[in-house]
């Protein structure tokens, strides 16, 4: 893969590497960002409304106001990410001018382009994108995403979709490692993904960028679950600031992510927590209410 010799690409993926094993938390104010940093978040995601509120209130969800993002950037010393609408490269240009550390081209916001995602190689700031399966992940990486995350179902407080997407990606990667060259060409066609990326996965058994989990994590055990299934770090959106005890819950999820293999530590992290966010049975949602089907 020729990208591996590209120094801009290397420092983008390098920052993603630094976030491994950590928790990236959605925040809407500088005060929430401080709570997240104190709890041990390895980065924060600045946004105007958390996914659960976007879901509830409806309307068009856009990039957060620069003022909010700027306040969050000056409140904490950890990396600050922010979201743009799928395909909205002008919002991405604004975030790059603002010097955020990572851009999330996110299905949580209302898509700006139903056919094209942002050409992310055109930016110096690294991007993270969501995926439901391996083909989607490799298409985003081909466009320049330096980190992948499962889409899950944001704002649902329900881990089922994040589990489905993580298992799908991991299983498909495992399968590629058993195929020979002519089968890989066929698989590239089936996946709708570039052959060189398919070959990379076949050789290494993993994506060429870190693979994180997002979309439904609400408890320490949820974090442990997705980490055990192969996630390399965890995004928590509504799960923290929609719970009754954000600071305690944030800390507990950070602990469970580090100690994901140690049930006693996850138990300890789960003790004395208040009420988790209420959550939604994803099967009760209409197709048009799903966020994960945005983008391709």
């Amino acid at each position: 893969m020729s990208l591996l010799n590209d120094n801009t690409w290397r420092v983008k993926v390098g920052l993603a590497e630094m976030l491994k094993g950590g928790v990236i938390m959605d925040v809407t104010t500088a005060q929430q960002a401080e709570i997240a940093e104190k709890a041990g978040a390895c980065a924060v995601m600045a946004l105007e409304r958390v996914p659960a509120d976007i879901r509830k209130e409806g309307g068009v969800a856009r990039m957060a106001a620069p003022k909010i993002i700027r306040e969050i950037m000056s409140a904490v010393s950890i990396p600050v990410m922010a979201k743009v609408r799928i395909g909205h490269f002008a919002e991405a240009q604004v975030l790059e001018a603002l010097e955020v550390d990572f851009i999330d081209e996110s299905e949580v916001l209302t898509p700006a382009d139903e056919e094209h995602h942002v050409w992310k190689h055109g930016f110096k700031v690294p991007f993270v994108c969501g995926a439901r399966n391996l083909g989607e992940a490799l298409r985003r990486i081909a466009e320049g995403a330096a980190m992948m995350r499962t889409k899950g179902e944001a704002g649902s407080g329900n881990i089922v979709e994040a589990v489905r997407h993580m298992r799908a990606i991991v299983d498909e990667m495992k399968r590629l490692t058993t195929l020979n060259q002519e089968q890989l060409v066929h698989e590239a066609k089936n996946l709708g993904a570039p052959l060189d990326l398919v070959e990379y996965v076949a050789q290494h058994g993993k994506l060429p960028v870190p693979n994180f989990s997002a979309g439904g994590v609400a408890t320490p055990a949820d974090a442990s679950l997705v980490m055990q299934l192969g996630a390399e770090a965890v995004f928590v959106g509504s799960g923290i600031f929609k719970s009754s005890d954000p600071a305690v819950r944030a800390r507990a999820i950070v602990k469970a992510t580090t100690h994901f293999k140690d049930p006693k530590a996850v138990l300890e992290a789960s003790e004395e927590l208040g009420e988790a966010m209420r959550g939604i049975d994803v099967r009760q949602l209409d197709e048009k209410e799903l966020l994960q089907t945005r983008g391709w």
Partner: protein
Amino acid sequence: MKVGVLAVQGDFEAHRAMLGSLAVDSAEVRAVADLDGLDAIVLPGGESTTQLKFLQEEGLFHPLRKFALDGGAIFGTCAGAILLATEVLNPVQDSLALMDITVLRNGYGRQLSSEVRFGHCSFKPAPLEMVFIRAPIIQRVGPGLEVLAEDAGRPVLVRQGRLLAATFHPELTGDSTVYSFFLGLIGERVQA
């Protein structure tokens, strides 16, 4: 020889891959018991605030200090270098305070200032490739410490006895020069 890699958060897997490529046994360190039988410890890159909080809350802070004070070798890269410093600025934060250096967090700025550069290294004839990611700057180096590499006139690799601090990420390159140098420091202790 067995090297422990602090696996709280950060690029600990990249460090283990580098050690593996040099045929060195490594183990993840998340608890005090994991320190048993280690010849050296690596503090990886990542978020120093996240790592520090963990060390302080989960009892690893003092055992790590003791490991170094008893003569154990420790190599810190980026966040790891921040943890080793006696003084941390921007903002002020606690640290293991083992190496007499002052470190400025995010010294170059935000991610847009992250870069791959080449600089002079005292134990490598050719320029050394250095990957800087939201890197700290070593603002002050105490007397008696050895500056082993520089970038644009700034110290980026510093040694104090068996402690080694890099503001860049040798684990993210194919070049094992800095790692081999560190493994040499461990060897000195075994012979002594």
